[in-house]
């Protein structure tokens, strides 16, 4: 069966009108060619992974994101990048050289006003443009929470599909960075996962970031794209130079295993990989899954995996209570109850504000993973 790993179309797997599956939703979306992934097992997904030989560059995450933004602004004249300090390249250099190449009318700085930045982006998107708003740190996204929850997420629904702001993508660096303290380290993804109408996407590496960002921008739904700031410089890998997208709402099995399923996203996966390597020396084979899109999440893939292994561990940096791991745990317990051989465990941040000096205690470290795995 011919299956292309990197598709240029998007598969919308839910049938409700909220996700704009109908082809008449504004023309920014090409319908995919009848791929029904729900009957695929994780095994099939991984086995068909043989990408064609591509030209790649060894770059870090902020460069990959920069490339994705260059590609979008190149290919679509009605796309714009804006936010605080994006003009000179941004505090994390993700928007370097965009203003020089595409001009001040398409890449521009905004004043310090998150609520207005997102609101403005919603308005721009509702007229059929691709508005790529940058929030400087995810910790600052809260003034814009009202706009995202009440305006962006519900626009298509409450207008009966007359209008939508699918062209909106909100990008924000999230997560711990070692010394960020209370207001430069938060992981607020759980707040957004509670809102039907938007998508939440989190990449784990430079190549994933480029593909997922291109997919998010071209997706006909508003997307909140969290970038793990710890990996901006630290993560370096071969990234294809051309334009490619990775499918949204599609989790990826990073390594196959048979004893336990581990689910995570973003920078936490690096920690989980280390833990997997350590337990494999003791003969425990872990299946590691990168969720990639948090809502709508790839329930089938995780269910198939848990049905195979019988155990699940979810890990994220955000505090454990009410984090997205809770949703995964509840959902999997519901669907795979008879197959589970142990309760679903979560290795997450502690239920405290993100601390300054206590950061090493707060974080879900490799040792905490190992402890929970029972060693």
């Amino acid at each position: 069966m011919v299956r292309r790993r990197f598709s240029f179309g998007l598969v919308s797997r839910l049938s409700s009108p909220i996700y704009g599956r109908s082809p008449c939703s504004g023309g920014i979306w090409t319908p995919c060619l009848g791929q029904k992934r729900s009957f695929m097992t994780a095994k099939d997904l991984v086995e068909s992974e043989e990408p064609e030989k591509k030209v790649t560059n060894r770059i870090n995450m902020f460069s990959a994101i920069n490339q994705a933004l260059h590609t979008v602004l190149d290919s679509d004249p009605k796309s714009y990048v804006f936010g605080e300090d994006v003009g000179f390249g941004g505090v994390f250099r993700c928007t370097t050289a965009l203003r020089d190449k595409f001009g001040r009318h398409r890449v521009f700085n905004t004043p310090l006003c998150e609520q207005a930045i997102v609101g403005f982006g919603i308005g721009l998107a509702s007229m059929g443009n691709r508005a790529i708003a940058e929030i400087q740190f995810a910790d600052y996204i809260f003034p814009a929470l009202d706009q995202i929850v009440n305006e962006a997420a519900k626009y298509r629904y409450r207008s009966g599909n007359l209008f939508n702001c699918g062209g909106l993508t909100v990008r924000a660096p999230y997560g711990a960075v070692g010394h960020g303290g209370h207001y430069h380290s938060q992981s607020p993804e759980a707040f957004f996962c509670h809102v039907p109408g938007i998508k939440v996407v989190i990449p784990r590496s430079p190549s994933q970031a480029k593909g997922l960002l291109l997919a998010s921008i071209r997706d006909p739904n508003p997307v909140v794209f969290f970038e793990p700031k710890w990996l901006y410089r630290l993560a370096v890998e071969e990234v294809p130079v051309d334009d490619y997208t990775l499918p949204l709402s599609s989790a990826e099995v990073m390594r196959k295993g048979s004893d336990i399923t581990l689910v995570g996203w973003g920078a936490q996966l690096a920690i989980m990989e280390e833990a997997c390597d350590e337990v494999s020396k003791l003969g425990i084979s872990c299946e590691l899954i990168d969720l990639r899109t948090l809502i709508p999440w790839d329930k089938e893939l995780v269910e198939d995996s848990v049905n195979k292994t019988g155990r699940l561990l979810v890990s994220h940096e955000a505090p454990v209570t009410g984090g997205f791991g809770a949703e995964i745990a509840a959902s999997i317990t519901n669907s795979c109850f008879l197959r589970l051989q142990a309760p679903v465990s979560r290795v997450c941040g502690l239920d405290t504000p993100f601390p300054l000096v206590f950061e090493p205690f707060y974080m879900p470290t490799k040792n905490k993973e190992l402890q929970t795995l029972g060693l």
Partner: protein
Amino acid sequence: MALRQAWQKAGKVLNGGALVSPGSTFARALSTSSDPLTLEIPVPFKGHKVDPPSSTVETSAAELVDFFRTMFVMRRMEIAADSLYKSKFIRGFCHLYDGQEAVCVGMEAALNDKDCIITAYRDHCTHLGRGGTVLEVFAELMGRKDGCSLGKGGSMHMYNKKGGFYGGNGIVGAQTPLGAGLAFAQKYLKVDGVTLAMYGDGAANQGQLFEAMNISALWDLPVIYVCENNHYGMGTAEWRSAKSPEYYKRGDYVPGLKVDGMDCLAVKQAVKFAKEYSLKNGPMVLEMDTYRYHGHSMSDPGSTYRTRDEISGVRQERDPIERIRKLLLSHEFASVADLKAIEKEAKKEVEDALAKAKESPSPDAPELFSHIYRKSYGAEAYGADRKESTVKLP
């Protein structure tokens, strides 16, 4: 005649070689007189919907010396914080206030302990002004137990309950509605104090500020909105981010005053005036025209968006400490040697505090879980090194 010459000689020796004018005592030329003294403020005030106060300010020699001493301590403290950061004793974020000392020192001269201050993250000196100590500041910066917030807040979150200093807030603009609330409490409880809600030129474009101004004007709250306009919101110049960089006019129906923020006496006059106005009539906006020598934070060199000439120009012409120094010397309230002695004392104070702060221990593990709620809940924490440590909280 010979006796006089002998006294003068003795005076020279005791004063470290400086010339002592014949009229003053030879033991200390430093004037601690609190006799009233009137001075003219060189840069006039600009008013918006209010008549500006007179530019003649009442002060005294003792007050001027006090300004000098306090500002010098603040300057040394910030510079010490700079080197602490570079030697990695301080991690995370550190936003330095040097250059802007006149604002908080001038404010304190017009306020008392019934007033409250709330500001954003550039708060080390504001904390000192409200009664904090240099030791508390250093310990907090390094995340140690003796810090004012028990080491749990860090550079951006310094608080002082007794001094009515409500911090130290990370999200810009978010502290302004809090300021309106503090003022409401003061008015309701008839405390006879005002609240100074401080924010920067970057935060001046946040919606919450205008919401707060509307509420305080509607209910005549005794709050003074102080915009510390150092002309750069992180790296963005004011004219790039604000359609109207005349921040004292942005209150619209709220009267405003533009003040030279590098002049202690001007700040004192303005805050005194605003306090009287506010207690009777409601909110007022004060725009302090000031400047910061360092970048936005320690990770910002401060020279990519402004020229080094600009920085050194301001330092030469408008430095607040130099201004007071010139005043003191020209009015002969102090000699060069006196000022040097004060500087030496200040440096010593800062160094001692630094040494003591370095010895202070890190907060204990239970502090990670305490004060999340008022009554702590029992918690178990796994240590970072695979040893389980159970934290029992009261």
